[in-house]
């Protein structure tokens, strides 16, 4: 069902935990839908120097959180914003169709954490370029 990469990130998730006094925090998802992700970003000079997560969800949700935090570490906020759900899914060597929404959640979590930082800094939050890309047929629970 899952790729080896997904299983690796599920069984050995990178960056689990919280960051005290994180510059940006994003929580997405809904317990009613069976998945919640909370992303913590440490941001120094516009660069993500640390990223951590806590996730309630299925194997794909945990692996997506792990991979997304890996992908944004060391990136500028502009670069991190461009990390799409497809990039997360590809880095995981694919996700089953009914699990694609987990990668969407990860993208949303990163975006929300970045905007949390921007708002706290008194900046305009960035807008989702293509919010409709987050809708997908297979979702039975809309967040």
């Amino acid at each position: 069902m899952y790729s080896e990469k997904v299983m690796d990130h599920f069984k050995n998730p990178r960056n689990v935990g919280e960051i005290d006094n994180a510059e940006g925090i994003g929580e997405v998802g809904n317990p009613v839908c069976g998945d919640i992700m909370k992303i913590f970003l440490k941001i120094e000079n516009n660069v993500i120097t640390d990223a951590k997560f806590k996730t309630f969800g299925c194997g794909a949700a945990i692996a997506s959180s792990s991979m997304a935090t890996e992908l944004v570490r060391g990136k500028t906020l502009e670069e991190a914003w461009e990390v799409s759900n497809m990039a997360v899914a590809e880095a995981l060597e694919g996700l089953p169709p009914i699990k694609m929404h987990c990668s969407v959640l990860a993208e949303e979590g990163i975006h929300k954490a970045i905007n949390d930082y921007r708002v706290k800094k008194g900046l305009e939050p960035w807008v989702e370029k293509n919010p409709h890309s987050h809708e997908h047929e297979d979702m039975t629970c809309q967040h």
Partner: protein
Amino acid sequence: MGAQRTIYMDHSATTFVKPEVANAMIPYFTEHFGNPSSIYSIARESKKAIDFARVQTAKALGADPGEIYFTSGGSESDNWAIKGVAFANRKRGNHIITTQIEHHAVLHTCQYLEKEGFEVTYLPVDQYGLVDPAVLEKAITEKTILISIMYANNEIGTIEPIAEFGAIARKHKVYFHTDAVQAIGSIPIDVKAQNIDLLSLSAHKFYGPKGTGALYIKKGVRIDNLIHGGGQERRRRAGTENIAGIVGLGKAIEMATADITGHAAKIRSMRDRLINGVLSTISHTRLNGHPEKRLAGNFNVSFEFIEGESMLLWLDDEGICASTGSACTSGSLEPSHVLLATGLPVEISHGSLRLTLGDANTEKDVDFVLEVLPKIVKKLRDMSPLFVKSGKEGSCNVQ
């Protein structure tokens, strides 16, 4: 993954075929393969084998052999019972009563019939998954032609008061069908005493082969065919008989019902140790289903703050086969309709685990699960954003 051995705790999803059953089946593949409808000697062997399996099956239910019809499994039996009775009795009425916790083979069939102009009442259940006989009786109208209530639930294991429903159905002259797929071998059944008109069963739930089931149809019940064609099964179910499968079903049901009480006691004692062990060592944990009126092998539990699939993956990594909800829905994102019907909040239903014990298990398996499961729950809770919010202390166990 890294498992050394397999601990199978998903007997409600399916069971292994017992060696005695497999051995009984094998001669019917390459040797006694004659089509039982033919008249030559080797075909008569096949016919005899089917007749024998019919007697074995009838005996297990307290039915007459002439009331047993072999099918391709529980789903076909449920579809046949419900559509067959509905269409054959359309002129008498268009109302069907079932429950919110049926298997999808019943629920989706009823939903299909709604599109075809039937009205269906889906009875609620209490927190334990029990249907109230008084509520059933009140739901009956003069248009009611069929009541279909499962004998025991496949997810939470709750055993329904079938004889009471049967008496009510009889009193109101409404046909009564029960999906007994999970009950065979766990609960003694007597279709006559319990006033059951139709009963579905499936061999792979009691150590028989997959793809073989039966429908008991009480003599005199008006029912249409589901599969039309040749004159097999006394003109009621077309298709060359799956002789090996039928022989396997017969042998399996005979073995499964030879000593139900003794067998259930053994399974129940292992299961109870598992339940008590889990509930006493893991906090924020709820037992789903009825504390006593439940299938001997069934343990269904919700762990708050974590999600079921990730539990399953870790259990699988340890070689433990389990499920969340029913097997057919474990690929889906939807929470169990059964747990929701018992009033369990959606977010908690996501953290449910079903362990169903059976003949593949030993006490050692229970020890191992009790050793491994608390660690898995802890690991997942440690990474859950919900756990911190709610605090680690306190318990809301339902005993």
